[in-house]
């Protein structure tokens, strides 16, 4: 039996967003908005960040210019022959919290993963005008279909933690933190708390 239901109406609501971002683009996006990302993004997770910071400490340039870019926290599984990429869903973002403010300062405009960000990262997003998106954890096979090209850019020896350039089409995500300081996870939680105190 196929588990396929009707196409989720999630996609009917998506706001189309082009990557990389032009000046001022991310400031128009608000916490809770559903977006479909189309264009080019970079990937990186724990070791990718560690290596970025080693390069910065040595006063060297990063392998890519991050200004205006979106950095997606993912370590994809290998592609089978004939596939663009294997599963490519988000990893948990808090592990990158320690690195993110510095990258936002360097011009990075958005990060994407899953789960909450630290107060320090949220402050940095307001200060440097950046946003944070969550995409769907555990939907790596589904999300791989939104990736039209994948190219290895640097750190091949880090295996799944290498730096890749992805070309994506209508890649779905939810805006969690916007440039005004709002946090969608907190709003969902507070909404629930209000509802339960109403009913008491």
């Amino acid at each position: 039996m196929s588990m396929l239901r009707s196409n989720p109406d999630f996609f009917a609501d998506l706001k189309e967003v082009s990557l990389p971002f032009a000046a001022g683009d991310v400031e128009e996006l608000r916490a809770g908005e559903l977006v479909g990302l189309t264009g080019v993004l970079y990937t990186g997770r724990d070791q990718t960040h560690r290596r970025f910071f080693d390069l910065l400490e040595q006063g060297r340039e990063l392998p890519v210019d991050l200004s205006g870019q979106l950095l997606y926290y993912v370590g994809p599984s290998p592609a089978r022959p004939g596939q663009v990429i294997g599963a490519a869903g988000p990893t948990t973002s808090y592990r990158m919290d320690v690195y993110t403010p510095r990258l936002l300062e360097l011009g990075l405009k958005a990060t994407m993963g899953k789960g909450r960000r630290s107060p320090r990262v949220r402050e940095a997003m307001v200060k440097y005008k950046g946003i944070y998106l969550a995409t769907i954890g555990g939907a790596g096979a589904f999300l791989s279909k939104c990736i039209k090209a994948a190219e290895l850019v640097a750190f091949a020896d880090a295996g799944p933690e290498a730096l890749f350039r992805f070309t994506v089409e209508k890649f779905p995500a939810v805006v969690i933190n916007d440039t005004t300081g709002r946090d969608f996870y907190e709003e969902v939680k507070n909404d629930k708390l209000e509802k339960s105190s109403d009913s008491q």
Partner: protein
Amino acid sequence: MREITSKTITAAVREIAMAAGCDLEPDILDNLLQARERETSRLAANVLDILLINADIASRDKIPVCQDTGVAVIFVTMGQDVRIIGNLEEAIQEGVRLGYEDGFLRKSVCDPITRVNTMTNTPAVIHLELVAGDCFELAIIPKGCGSENMSGLTMLPPSAGLDGMVDFVVETVVAAGPNPCPPLLVGVGMGGTFEKSALLAKKSLLRPLGEPSPRRDVAELERKILNRINKSGQGVHGLGGCNTALGVHIEPYPAHIASLPVAVNIQCHAHRHKEISL
């Protein structure tokens, strides 16, 4: 005495590792479908739809359900009347290495000091249990660590009682928030010693999702904790609704008169598991 060769074991481990990576078992799919039916939040319902479509694509195209194909946790239940021809440990590790390579699964294991990837997804974590008879059973849980990282263990004083235990489990899940990919399966080991409780928590994940404990008082605790977790309203991926957890499995074991260890092993909705009997 029954004899099993290391070659047979390697082939079996390879097979279950590959199958577990791409095919969700019926107990998980059924629970996701039930969660979709009762979901109250529109956004969460849409995400559950995507998770069901994801399972379909993964199985059809042999793409892993989730790119985090985990640390391979292998449970071996071996009858004491079985004799292994060859090296059991090496046979299992070789099966994991082959399964992750041939199945296009991600290699996610690294040295804890240097963080250099072993590039084979080995070593696996192996738990061997010797039992009476001549059975030989293998089970794999490819354990993703977005969820594993949100697990916790506490050594409660007996005076904390069941209320203390329930509070610790619920608080661990609520504190994790959206990080571990809810809706979750919450594995709880209760009693024993420090390490026994952790192992029981992991082992509880092998019980078919939604099957209550055979002990009525434990099953009642499981229901109580599940209700409290789902009233938190965090929901699927922290986006709201009534499905923060799909199930709570508690495995009890007698404890010291001074002690009440409680271990909580958090598992994501992509709970992959596969069993084989040789």
